[in-house]
């Protein structure tokens, strides 16, 4: 994709024809990556502010309100504070791994942004294995979290790291299984194709959420399991501040701590974006087809719709965090292995049977065909 972009760029600007093609391709890749990373970091910063505001609202207090209008620049102040803080590496820590761990978590979380289908044609790299790429690259996060816990040489951090590893590995299974119905319906692993398969029928009844009862359940199973994979309350056992101080990143300070913090918000976005793309129709909205709009407007409109849906799911996660109490470790594992895993397998079987019996048609499509 990047290469074809480079070729069309060379054709448009003849001055560039002397430059080797792969340098231009590489430059475009770097630029696209920079744009995606800038977006991701700005989003993460603002999300920390929104989280604090939501927390404030739910606890009947004001929340940050000093820096900038209604405190919206709070995240910049926090960022500067974290940058200027002293960087402490514990004396007995494994220095190399201690330094490496936050980068692994950060990379694993933000590399997933590459395949998020932000809108019509707005995807950094439309991999044909999109969903599996996300699951593969986010496995770096587990490794990073475990290394952080182990290399700190601190019992709380070690416990937090082990809990996190057990939790993420367990919940990876229901997450993957709950996403597969969308893959089955679209017949493709590419997120862009999955979103396209949900168009038509007034823009809302084409969504996989309403395709059949199994996919409806699948969305909720995915959201719950994904919540656990991002280590957020009610599944934040790895951090559980009342028992583990703050879990695997207890020894981190300054900018290294910020990496963990930002990665958590990056994870939330990726998880919500996957839910939006696989079940909530991506950029499709009722009565307006973004792909039929003039080029630039279509792109911008679809971007707005996609971000609207995704960020709503992110705010829902914050809402859940400040409302529900935390599960116990044994309850957490029971939820994963005794309920979520069997249910998602059952769902997968149900969706497969449905597609086989009704030739891939969903309930809305069948109702629509009744009326000709």
């Amino acid at each position, binding site marked *: 994709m990047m290469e074809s972009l480079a070729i069309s760029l060379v054709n448009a600007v003849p001055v560039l024809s002397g430059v080797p093609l792969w340098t231009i391709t590489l430059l475009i890749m770097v630029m696209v990556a920079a744009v995606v990373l800038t977006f991701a970091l700005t989003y993460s910063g603002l999300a920390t502010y929104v989280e604090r505001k939501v927390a404030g609202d739910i606890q009947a207090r004001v929340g940050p309100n000093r820096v900038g209008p209604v405190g919206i620049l709070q995240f910049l102040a926090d960022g500067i504070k974290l940058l200027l803080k002293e960087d402490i590496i514990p004396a007995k820590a494994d220095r190399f791994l201690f330094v490496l761990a936050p980068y692994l978590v950060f990379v694993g979380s933000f590399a997933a942004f590459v395949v998020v289908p932000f809108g019509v044609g707005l995807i950094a790299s439309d991999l044909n294995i999109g969903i*599996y790429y996300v699951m*593969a690259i986010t496995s770096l996060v587990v*490794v990073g979290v475990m290394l952080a816990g182990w290399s700190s040489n601190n019992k709380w951090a*070690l416990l937090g*790291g*082990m809990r996190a*590893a057990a939790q993420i*590995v367990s919940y990876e299974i229901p997450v993957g299984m709950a996403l597969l119905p969308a893959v089955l319906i679209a017949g493709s*692993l590419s997120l862009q194709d999955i979103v396209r398969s949900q168009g038509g029928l007034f823009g809302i009844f084409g969504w996989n959420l309403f395709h059949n009862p199994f996919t409806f359940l699948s969305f909720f199973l995915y959201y719950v399991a994904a919540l656990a994979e991002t280590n957020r309350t009610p599944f934040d056992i790895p951090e559980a501040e009342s028992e583990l101080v703050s879990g695997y990143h207890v020894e981190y300070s300054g900018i290294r701590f910020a990496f963990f913090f930002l990665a958590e918000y990056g994870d939330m976005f990726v998880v919500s974006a996957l839910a939006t793309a696989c079940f909530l129709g991506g950029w499709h909205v009722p009565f307006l087809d973004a792909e039929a709009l003039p080029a630039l407007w279509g792109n911008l409109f679809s971007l707005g719709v996609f971000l609207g849906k995704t960020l709503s799911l992110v705010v829902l996660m914050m809402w859940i965090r400040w409302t529900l109490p935390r599960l116990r470790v044994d309850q957490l594992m029971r939820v994963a292995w005794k309920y979520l895993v069997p249910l998602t397998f059952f769902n997968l079987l149900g969706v497969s049977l449905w597609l086989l019996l009704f030739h891939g048609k969903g309930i809305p499509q069948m109702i629509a065909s009744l009326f000709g």
Partner: protein
Amino acid sequence: MEPILFIVFGAIAVGGAIMVVTRRHPMSSALFLILTLFAVAALFVLRQAHFLAAIQVIVYAGAVVVLFIFVIMLINVPENKLPLERLTGFRFLGIMVAGLFILEAALVARRFATPGTPTADSGSVEAVGRALFTDYLLAFEVTSVLLLAAVIGAIALAKKRI
């Protein structure tokens, strides 16, 4: 471009594998194993087998090695109590087996010196699925039975009362 990348990732994979067996601390070994697995996944990508690359990372780097690290963390042997391994008979045997394996791999590589150029969909989900459920169905099913036996065995060993 592709041959250069092949050499780079191949070198990382081999170098990582050597580090896995030579490091003293098990944690370093596990991490180098992850590096090797990622490099092999990159080699898969170079051969257009994107699906295999993703599965490689999900299953091995994301699950198997994570369990290794989990065990290493649970046991958590202090640095000064790690056993110092010497060159024993087993090691000589291991080196001999490794040599035999390299010889075998070289022979196979010679036989398929010019592999077919992969097309865009030769490594796709559809192609892999079709191959698994037609040509290699028996091997596929036998492997799944083997895995099932391993799972039952693990439970039988770990649980005192069933």
